């Protein structure tokens, strides 16, 4: 149970990042490789403001806002201009990775490459639950994961804009032909993804501290979770994250403490071989064709 709970907590973080990838992808068919760095931005900004004396709550909000703003900017500056040049279908891969490098190096330049402090928040407080001991922060993480998925599904299915998002995912050209400003929705999707990554960052901050290089780690893990869960459905992505978290924790305990470095890759390779579309994608077993809508 200890394993499950702490695994779920880590998994929720991965899941949030994976959901962020998935939401941006859902609307634009683009994988924003700077997603992990948006997590880092939230952490760094929150930590910096907190060190400067701002109240923790305000610092957190500022960190989240920063992640949202950068998310939108990434779409406008690095994705949209590149999508216009149709010929090269993977240009966004290069541009978003470029942005990731810029953000990482930029953060290291501004705040230095070493870890700085992050407000402890709820990290120190242990909670006894079902025979296991986890920190309140971890409980918060799991709660955040659940809330994110629930809120997203509710939004997607019940509100007009959620349905519009689904329409854009299904047929972007037709969506614009019924009056949807697909560019605006794309920016919103990237901003929302930034928010999710930011929330994940604020939740892990107390454990990882404010280090410019955490973006890569969480980005990769979030991406692996995305591949496991399924790229087509944000809810599936969260499920993938949770699964990854628990399995990694299991590997850590049963094998050795380094196992969580490489174990995720074993899982993802197995998943890709058996069911390339992801475990929770709802797609059929046979091959997946990932075509960009025109």
């Amino acid at each position, binding site marked *: 149970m200890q394993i499950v709970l702490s695994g779920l907590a880590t998994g929720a973080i991965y899941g949030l990042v994976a959901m962020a990838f998935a939401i941006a992808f859902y609307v634009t068919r683009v994988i924003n490789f700077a997603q992990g760095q948006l997590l880092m931005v939230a952490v760094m900004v929150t930590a910096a403001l907190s060190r400067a004396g701002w109240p923790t709550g305000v610092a957190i909000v500022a960190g989240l806002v920063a992640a949202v703003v950068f998310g939108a900017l990434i779409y406008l500056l690095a994705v949209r201009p590149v999508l216009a040049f149709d010929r090269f279908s993977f240009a966004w891969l290069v541009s978003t990775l470029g942005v990731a490098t810029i953000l990482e190096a930029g953060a290291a330049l501004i705040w230095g490459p070493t870890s700085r402090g992050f407000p402890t928040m709820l990290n120190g407080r242990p909670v006894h639950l079902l025979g296991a001991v986890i920190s309140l922060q971890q409980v918060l993480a799991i709660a955040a994961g659940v809330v994110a998925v629930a809120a997203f599904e509710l939004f997607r299915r019940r509100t007009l804009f959620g*349905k519009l998002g689904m329409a854009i995912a*299904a047929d972007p050209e*037709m969506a*614009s032909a*019924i009056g949807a400003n697909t560019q605006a929705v794309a920016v919103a999707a990237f901003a929302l993804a930034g928010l999710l990554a930011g929330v994940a960052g604020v939740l892990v901050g107390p454990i990882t501290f404010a280090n410019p290089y955490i973006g890569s780690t969480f980005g990769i893990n979030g991406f692996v979770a995305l591949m496991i869960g399924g790229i087509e459905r944000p809810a599936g992505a969260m499920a993938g994250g949770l699964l990854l978290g628990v399995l990694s924790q299991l590997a850590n305990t049963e094998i050795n403490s380094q196992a969580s470095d490489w174990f995720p890759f074993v899982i993802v390779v197995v998943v890709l071989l058996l069911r390339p579309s992801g475990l929770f994608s709802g797609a059929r077993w046979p091959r997946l064709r990932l075509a960009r809508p025109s």
Partner: protein
Amino acid sequence: MTQSSAVSITAPALAVASLSAGYGRFDVVRDVSLDIAAGEAVALLGPNGAGKTTVLRAIMGLVARRSGSVRVGGIETVGMSVHQVARGHAALVPEGRRLFLNQSVEDNLLLGALHLRRDRARVAALLASVYELFPVLRDYRHRMSAALSGGEQQMVAIGRMMMSDPAVMLLDEPSLGLAPLAIEAVGQALLRLREQGRSLLLVEQRVDLALQVCDRLYVLTGGAVVQQSRTADVDPESRALIDAYLG
């Protein structure tokens, strides 16, 4: 910007003047002019590859308009982006219907009224009128649109177009792939729309459907208009029509 559905006395519903449009370096549609008076229904006929679909897409703004003008209800739409044109000026039932298959019937219809979402009363009234025209859709309102037959999907597509309350309605081969009974139903629906005073531009392969519904017809070949007539003047049996339409 919403467009009043009241028929404007002076401005034609659609006035296309010297339109040239295309995808690549060369234009698919060259110097095409056509117009639809308010409340009129016009057919656009021609062989495959003639550019009929491109004309409709150009009116919506889905294809780059290289030159010429497209005035809908008196308002110039060249220069507007697609979603602006779709907000009350023109609405399209595309070839193959292209419903949002991951959504229900009612959701597809409600999405059609996206630009009117703040005016709930109006949306409700429009929805009621769609269900009145196609009663079977009311029964199916919560069914996934992917589960409907071709004919039923076509009704939803027409309904979705009606929901946006446009100044001009564009239909691209609505009879394509439908069984004869469904084609009947489509014809009836279009006639009802005419009765309501709507303006239609109909691209069709089935000449009889076009003649049944429309006042006038244009024939397009190789991207240019080659003939114009009033449907009343056309004798469907005559070889001249066959040649003109298909050759």
